[in-house]
């Protein structure tokens, strides 16, 4: 409003197109590593209940250290919301599981294995959960004091995802780019920043042209499996770039020059860590078993005897501790490389065009409940 008062109307020269703005990620890697290490340990001692707090802290870290046009975003979701969402989802899912079980019995009476298609129902539920979880995360995403939000229907999205999924199966995966484009269009067209509406301009054909040869090579990778990480990294990088290039919010658009080989290092590092951890775990198990044999005098082939309850306790306890330690380490590795590093790597390639269109946007949109996150957690389809 103030600007209007000083600038005489009509005398404003046409401004030259502004250079694109960068997206900055200022997160400190060791800080993030400490965060997830502490979180993973707490997750361990709380039998996983801490995950709601950890996930929230991870998002808060990533969001607040991401700045667009000099202004950092903020994540306002809280762990308590996720916990409640999970409990509500549980209350809804439990009767559904029971109904699924009973209907399944009736189907099986009529025809052997006729209840397998009922699984499709759970797939649909998973898609619904993905959509609703995205809505929750968006409504907790704040930039310049205005929130993102979403409308649209989770069930309409699930229906689209199912029909496109069927087509992908029928075409042996060739329809995948068009499925991605259609679903992304639905999601983005129902995404808003304040009063600006989102859109998605990526199309399936572009994606197809960037990745068709990966589709051709995938049977080869099944035979020569060291190729799999390369192919997957290629696919993911191409998908990310195509996705970012298509995003529009109001007049603002994104573009990315993410190189096709951007994720090679990440995936191989994860595989390297994983191999290392497996080796350590193997050595630990062998060493531990030998130690138990030495100390108790039980012969090696009787150590695992289930009926000698008392004698197998040390071995089982050792196994459980070792397993959890490895799970914890894998967890940390995955979060550092595949969440934090991937996030940073993608963001440093993103350019934002015409950010001025978002300079004075009125806020709108309501907060969405965390029910979708709860479902996603319950059905194990959770993303970030």
């Amino acid at each position, binding site marked *: 409003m103030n600007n209007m008062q000083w600038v005489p109307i009509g005398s404003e020269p046409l401004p030259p197109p502004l250079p694109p703005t960068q997206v900055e990620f200022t997160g400190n890697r060791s800080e993030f590593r400490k965060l997830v290490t502490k979180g993973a340990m707490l997750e361990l001692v709380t039998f996983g209940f801490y995950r709601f707090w950890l996930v929230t802290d991870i998002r808060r870290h990533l969001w607040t250290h991401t700045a667009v046009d000099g202004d950092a975003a903020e994540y306002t979701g809280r762990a308590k919301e996720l916990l409640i969402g999970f409990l509500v989802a549980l209350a809804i899912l439990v009767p559904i599981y029971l109904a699924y079980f009973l209907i399944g019995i009736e*189907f099986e009476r009529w025809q052997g294995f006729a209840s397998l298609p009922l699984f499709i129902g759970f797939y649909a539920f998973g898609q619904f959960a993905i959509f609703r979880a995205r809505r929750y995360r968006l409504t907790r995403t704040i930039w310049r004091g205005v929130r993102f939000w979403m409308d649209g229907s989770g069930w309409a999205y699930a229906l689209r995802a199912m029909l496109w999924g069927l087509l992908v199966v029928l075409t042996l995966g060739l329809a995948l780019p068009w499925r991605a484009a259609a679903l992304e269009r639905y999601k983005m067209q129902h995404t808003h920043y304040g009063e600006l509406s989102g859109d998605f301009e990526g199309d399936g054909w572009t994606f197809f042209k960037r990745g068709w040869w990966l589709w051709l090579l995938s049977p080869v990778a099944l035979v020569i499996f060291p190729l799999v990480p390369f192919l997957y990294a290629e696919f993911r990088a191409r998908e990310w770039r195509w996705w970012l290039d298509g995003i529009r919010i109001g007049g603002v658009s994104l573009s990315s020059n993410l190189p096709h080989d951007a994720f090679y290092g990440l995936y191989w590092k994860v595989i390297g860590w994983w191999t290392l951890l497996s080796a350590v775990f193997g050595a630990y198990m062998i060493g531990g078993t030998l130690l138990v044999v030495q100390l108790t005098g039980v012969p090696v082939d009787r150590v*695992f005897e289930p009926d000698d309850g008392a004698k197998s306790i040390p071995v089982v306890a050792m196994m459980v501790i070792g397993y959890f330690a490895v799970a914890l380490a894998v967890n940390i590795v995955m979060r550092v490389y595949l969440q934090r590093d991937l996030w940073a790597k993608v963001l440093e390639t993103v350019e934002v065009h015409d950010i001025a269109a978002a300079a004075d946007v009125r806020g709108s949109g309501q907060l969405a409940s965390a029910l979708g996150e709860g479902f996603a957690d319950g059905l194990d389809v959770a993303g970030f």
Partner: protein
Amino acid sequence: MSDVFAEAPAQSAKPTVFFDGVSSRKRQVTLTLGDALEICEEGGTPVRWAYAEIRRADSPPGILRLAAMSAPPLARLEIRDGVLAADVTARCMHLDEHRTTRRGVAKIVGWSVAAAVSIVCVVLFGVPLAADRLAPLVPKPVERRIGDAAEVQMKTIFGRSVCEDPAGKAAFTKLVNRLRDAAGLDDTMTAGVLPTSVPNAFALPGGKVFVLKGLFDKAESPDELAGILAHELGHLKHHDNMRGLIYNGGTSFLIGLLFGDVTGSSAVIFASRSLVEASYSREAETGADTFAIEIMHKLGRSPKPAAELMFRITGKEGGSGLATIFASHPLTEDRLARMTKEDRPPSGPPLLTDKEWQALKGICGSGKM
């Protein structure tokens, strides 16, 4: 420019920015620290935030980002100047009141450990007890429905037809009836033979026992077969199917609840479930063996031949390390040892005549399999 900007240079190096929570417009403001925090934008009406209501919001390093309880929920004040930030921080006594403190984390840990302990106790003691008590109470029709569903599934795997050679069937019925009477089961139970070369037998909910033809091929005497049948009748008598169903359903749900995945697909859940369920199943198998031994003794026959038949089929199983913790049955050699201990010379009449035994072996017709 006008003299309103006189003070600006002091703050302009690191500007203070205000977002009013209504629009995304970035407002450069100056702060006045009076009895309340006053946020003044050039030419706008000042906004007042009481210090007690100011809360810290997440921010990147180098920026103090504030929100206020009475302001629109998304209104944010961003102070980039360190001195000014320290000044404001000192005045806001409830700045970090809403954050999770160490005590908060301890509370989460404490209560989740309590929840986990109670879930583990329920899995170990509550669910088996509930399964034992509830299984006999499940109404017969419900049990039979579940059994029907399982039967259709079995027949899809092993072929639709049932072996019904008349002489063989008569012998089979005679054998089953003798065992059934000794077991004290009512006549709602049914038994059948499926034409497949897999040597096995199983009991389904609702009183159905199926013997696969492969078992007849491997069996060398009626006693061998009778012992196995008696074992399956033991499962029926103990309602093991319903118990297992209730038990597995209960544990997978509770363990799923613990790890936050009600479908139970991830590795931890799979491992802990298999471990717990296998031990429960081994217990049920041992119970059915005990029952079989009793029945065979009651009929004046030895239970040992049945174990010999099992041993002939599976061979020695032990020494396979870890697998035995996850095994659903006790090791065959252990079962053989147990049944050998219970071996007694026959005191009752043979269960089938030689002629009947030959007829039984040909129940599926000869050479078809």
